[in-house]
């Protein structure tokens, strides 16, 4: 058993006939993900690429196919409803790729998924991949390789940068999770760190944070108190000015809180390895894998 997804993941894709949804549906199918259903209201009864049945609702899809995971590629105004639909339909994991979901929508979605006991990853995230087993989202499969490093990150391409460097250096990954760059998301660093700690395949963790909020500081405390496996951390945004939203809705320094310096300090205090540059992960992880 890997972290969050594995060979047994049966995926329903919400928005499978849209521009992004259809592109990534094919990518996931090529990677070997079990894509069992798609959802596009009004296209129920059709098939995607001649093989994947399309349904009008997630409830129908789950009932007919036993899907246990959903990935969402619908426009931002509909994303909150799509997440709740999936959670209500009985999947265990919902991954929302959509960027630009209003944060007030998330203040309502978050307690909803909690009440349903469903794990949400995202929104505004690249999804996750367990190399060689399953990919849910948009992380490019070819830059990953199976191996011992758990990767968790608030950003997309920065993750690719690090994963690519690790793979090129011959260091594979157990699971890579992009938790997303929004201020309110379904799964945080600690959730992932706990899962990596419990996962026998993971031997070390690479963690990429950003300015904004205090998630990284709390993660550092968790690492210090609960983790036996080594963790190497990085914080993007050391040169970011306060009060400006650096692309990600969540990457904003408010007042004196959420600076990179503060976060790096907490990493050091937790005894973590600290990467100053993305490429530093290679040597720091290598040293910790022994």
């Amino acid at each position, binding site marked *: 058993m890997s972290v969050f997804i594995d060979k047994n993941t049966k995926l329903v894709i919400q928005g499978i006939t849209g521009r992004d949804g259809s592109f990534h549906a094919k990518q996931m199918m090529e990677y070997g993900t079990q894509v069992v259903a798609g959802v596009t209201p009004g296209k129920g009864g059709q098939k995607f690429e001649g093989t994947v049945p399309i349904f009008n609702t997630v409830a129908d899809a789950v009932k007919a196919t036993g899907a246990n995971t959903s990935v969402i590629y619908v426009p*931002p105004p509909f994303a909150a409803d799509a997440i709740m639909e999936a959670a209500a339909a009985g999947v265990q994991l919902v991954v929302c790729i959509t960027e630009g*979901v209003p944060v*007030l929508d998330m*203040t309502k979605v978050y307690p909803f998924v909690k009440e349903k006991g469903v794990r949400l990853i995202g929104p505004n995230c690249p999804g996750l991949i367990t190399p060689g087993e399953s990919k849910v989202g948009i992380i490019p499969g070819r830059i990953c390789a199976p191996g011992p490093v758990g990767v968790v990150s608030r950003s997309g391409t920065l993750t690719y940068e690090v994963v690519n460097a690790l793979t090129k250096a011959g260091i594979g990954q157990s699971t890579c999770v992009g938790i997303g760059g929004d201020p309110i998301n379904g799964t945080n660093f600690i959730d992932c760190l706990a899962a990596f700690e419990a996962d026998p395949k993971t031997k070390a963790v690479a963690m990429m944070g950003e300015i*904004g909020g205090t998630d990284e500081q709390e993660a550092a405390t968790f690492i210090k108190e609960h983790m036996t496996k080594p963790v190497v951390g990085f914080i993007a945004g050391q040169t970011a000015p306060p009060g400006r*939203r650096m*692309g990600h809705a969540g990457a904003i320094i408010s007042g*004196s809180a959420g600076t990179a310096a503060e976060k790096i300090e907490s990493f050091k205090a937790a005894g973590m390895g600290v990467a100053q*540059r993305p490429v530093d992960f290679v040597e720091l992880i290598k040293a910790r894998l022994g």
Partner: protein
Amino acid sequence: MNIHEYQAKEILRGYGVNIPPGEVATTPAQAEAIATKYGTAVMVKAQVHAGGRGKAGGVKFCKTPADAKEKATAILGMQIKGLTVEKVLVTVAADIGSEAYVGIIVDRATKKPVFMVSAAGGIDIEQVAAETPEKILYVPVDVRYGLPTYDAMRMGFFLYDDVKLARAAGKIMQQLYAAFMASGCSLAEINPLVVTPQGELVAVDGKMVIDDNELDRLPAIAALRDESSEEPSEVDARNANLTFIKLDGNVGCVVNGAGLAMATMDLVKYYGGDPANFLDIGGSSNPEKVVYALRIITADPNVKAILFNIFGGITRTDDVANGIVTATKANPLKVPIVIRLTGTNEEIAMKILTENGFSASSDMDEAVQKAVALAKGGKAA
């Protein structure tokens, strides 16, 4: 998105908040006319998206219309934190008995809107939070239930002992909350909330920051955007669907993805350079975006070198390469450019660039070092 005080007040008034009458003037004569109409002392207040207006001399008390004209003359055209004052709000001056602070933000930790209220109003709430945290009451709101009356009253009693004032304040909390939710805010505040000597509650200043992600579904709010009060390059970038933030350095950065863009800026700094901007072209690989990005960056005279850092996932690197070629053919570059590309269609991209006289590498650190050196040297590669 920031909106002006007068716009925030208009919204709050619509939800029933008691706010002194006021109108916007763009000339001293208009300010005088408005003050004449009110026939009482007024405040003339600079409308700019910057804090510390008062300290900068952008907020003045005026006893007479002539006084209002004079103060408006001084304030209009004034620079506050680099922004030119184009408008003033002329508003009836309230008698001030006591000042309180009432604000709501979306709190990441509780994942809820959270009220912050303090009887120490009129001053910077961050200072209160840092120095006398016990003077602030924090009340998270579960949006599924809204702001219950009992929580509104709890805040009212935190500010005022008198039950009538507490009840009136509680009502204002509920009005502010309704405005906050319906306007898609990430922040809304009344500071100061004033008790007049007559015992009336009045919102003397109001501020709202809107979540950009709400604007598509709130056209009336989106229409409040005042582009004249923003950095022109940032306005252009937004209209081209790019995320751009101007900084003071000389290495212009074009990156895909917010996290990688920040990491690239950090690496510029790491190697002794200074980034001129944050620029995220996003996940889609539209060559047009690259053209816009280059146009915006090259418009900054500080930029001495341009650095592209693209990790192709969804973004096709060949699209980016084509964008660079198109843009530089139309407007030849006057500063050197360093291109780092890797990922999707990397080989095609490299071929396009080479054929058009550009060189490119696939190594981020190497590219950043080169760009920093070029910016310092000021010479083409």
